[in-house]
């Protein structure tokens, strides 16, 4: 009884405070991400990216103070995503929504945007189709097709004529499989077999055995970043595929920097393609890595969601500037269409048609640095890649 009263008091207090701060010309930004649970590391990177941007560019835009509210959505859960977004808009009165790690969550939020008069800047969720569901969405991450497509030509040029694909059996995995197959066949190669493995696979030896038996010269793999990648890479080495000269290609989710200390030697020499490497050599990135490393606490945990969040905040700042602190979603989103700038990852543009980010894709190789730590070493750049997934639709 007492607890209930206190709770109620807190809630009412929060409501009152909300209305007070709204009068003080504060622009609120709601960030939804996986801050706890199995993907907590990615959420932490969201936060690091946001804080790094605010540390480097100030906490206000033209006199409008910016306040960020974080909400936790540990795993893909559209019902909760919608509830959180609704509450952020209606109760916390945020003018901008950002974050979102998983595709179904984004799909649940986009139908609300028009009524809420709020733009959504996606920091990660990587399925092409999200962009078609609302004109008020922009995205600063990547799509699986975007990061995968250049690998088709790379594999073929590397002398692989027959390849096998191994992907996790879910949306992005299937996107990756299709994108690689299309690009590889366009280059002149042949995909001899496609394997889709269940998400909860922990022992990859049997799958590697099958890769070996298929007679393919190249292996294309897609796994979401996280614990299973370790087992996958180890199985690739231990079953003798590495020594057997079966070449390995994957999008960079597999060798994200925060997993490299654990993957270590096992990953050395793996080639992946991605839109961002923490080791990218540019003054913008040096500044970003320093600030974000400080925000996250342990710089070894820094990974790609941080740069998505950093650039996402850049868009939100530009939107606030264009709307002059007022709530005007259309004006805000129009202001960033066609916007170009130099991000820590390299030169980028928001495509005015699709509102998805056009960026360089880099081919990298895991190498040991002079400090004994492993990093993704850039070996080739594919400039200004649009999202092929959207282009074909």
């Amino acid at each position, binding site marked *: 009884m007492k607890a209930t009263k206190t709770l109620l008091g807190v809630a009412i207090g929060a409501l009152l405070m909300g209305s007070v701060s709204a009068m003080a010309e504060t622009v609120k930004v709601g960030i939804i991400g996986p801050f706890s649970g199995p993907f907590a590391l990615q959420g932490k990177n969201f936060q690091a990216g946001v804080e790094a941007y605010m540390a480097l560019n100030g906490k206000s835009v033209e006199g409008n103070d910016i306040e960020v509210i974080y909400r936790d959505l540990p*795993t893909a859960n559209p019902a909760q995503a919608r509830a959180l977004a609704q509450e952020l808009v209606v109760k916390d009165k945020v003018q901008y929504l950002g974050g979102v790690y998983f595709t*179904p969550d984004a799909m649940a939020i986009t139908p609300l945007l028009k009524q809420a008069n709020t733009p959504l800047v996606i920091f990660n969720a990587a399925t092409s189709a999200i962009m078609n569901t609302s004109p008020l969405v922009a995205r600063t991450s990547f799509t699986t097709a975007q990061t995968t497509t250049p690998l088709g030509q790379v594999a073929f040029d590397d002398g692989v004529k027959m390849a096998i694909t191994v992907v996790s059996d879910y949306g992005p995995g299937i996107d990756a499989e299709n994108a690689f197959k299309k690009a590889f066949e366009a280059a002149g190669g042949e995909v001899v077999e496609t394997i889709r493995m269940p998400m909860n696979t922990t022992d990859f030896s049997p799958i590697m055995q099958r890769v070996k038996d298929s007679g393919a010269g190249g292996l294309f793999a897609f796994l979401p970043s996280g614990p299973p990648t370790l087992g996958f890479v180890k199985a690739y080495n231990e079953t003798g595929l590495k020594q057997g000269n079966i070449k390995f290609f994957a999008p960079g989710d597999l060798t994200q920097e925060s997993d490299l200390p654990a993957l270590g030697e096992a990953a050395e020499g793996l080639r992946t393609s991605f839109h961002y490497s923490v080791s990218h050599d540019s003054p913008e990135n040096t500044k970003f890595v320093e600030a974000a490393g400080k925000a996250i606490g342990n710089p070894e945990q820094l990974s790609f969601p941080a740069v998505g969040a950093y650039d996402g905040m850049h868009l939100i700042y530009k939107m606030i500037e264009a709307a002059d602190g007022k709530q005007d979603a259309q004006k805000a989103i129009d202001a960033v269409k066609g916007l170009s700038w130099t991000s820590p990852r390299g030169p980028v543009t928001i495509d005015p048609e699709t509102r998805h980010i056009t960026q360089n894709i880099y081919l990298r190789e895991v190498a040991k640095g002079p400090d004994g730590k492993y990093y993704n070493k850039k070996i080739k750049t594919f400039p200004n890649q649009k999202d092929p997934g959207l282009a074909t639709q």
Partner: protein
Amino acid sequence: MQFVAQTERMTAAPVAGRRRWSRDAVGVILIVAAGVAGYFLFPDSLALLTRIIAVALLVLSLDLIVGYCGVASLGQATLFGAGAYAAGIACVNGVTEPLTLIAIGAVAGAAAGLVMGAIMLRAHGLAQLVLSIAIVQLAHEAANKASAYTGGSDGLAGLFVGPLFGVFEFDLWGQTAYLFGLSLLVAVFIILKFVVSSPFGMLCRGIKEDPIRIRAMGAFVFPVLLKMFVISGAVAGTGGALAAISTQVVGLDSVSFELSANALVMLVLGGLGTLYGALIGTVIFMGFEHVVSAINPFHWMTMVGALLIAVVLAAPGGLSDLLDQISAGKKRNSGGRP
């Protein structure tokens, strides 16, 4: 809220005849009052409250088989997901009338309940629990595989639900969804109160206490329990359909082991076999989770864990049991081996 719960639990105490009916009437009135109070006290969090109602329906359905039949299940989300996907797929294919969608969800849930019950009732105890896990995992995998119909891991999006009675829109503010959900919940609750106090409901309780004696009395156990499974499926399916309508997206999480396990945790937290316990457990668990995860989005899980441990230590029979004991002025019996 707790005061409400306390009074509700008193009404659930086994009291003979007419007094029980009048107490149940008071209980229902209190639920309605709590629901309406929620509407006015938290007008900005209606989407969350609607989600709580959808999950409350799932937990109620679980109470029917765990609390009244003694069948432990860690796969109840199968039935919830069946309702959600059936309503979602119907909606994408042009059925947009909300009440029809709820009916579709309930029927799909009942059908899933029939299948699931037929499988699960073959086993007992731990084996039964494992069967329920296997079923929900298979259903999850099937929903992932059938991505042409279910959208797979990207979720089934693009549900455009028509206005309720042709007037009330399901919009951003969620008033329609909440009041619709609340009415559904109250209606389902009243029906279930009748079901569990009917001779059929009593028979189920009897089976839970001593199946051999019931069999010796000449009753068939399997069809009785199967019937309860079907009812439970219909309730869970209703919850799933409500979630689909109010969210306008159906995700794979609606047929997951995690949701099933959470539902069981909420039920045990609230207390088994009273129906009120299911509601209390859901509201307390989800409300607490929401509050602590808003305060600290990074480390709230520890707090939820501590809540569960505290409840077991303070009230091994669940919160409703604790309230019951306080109201009855009984001494708490401490934990430990009996």
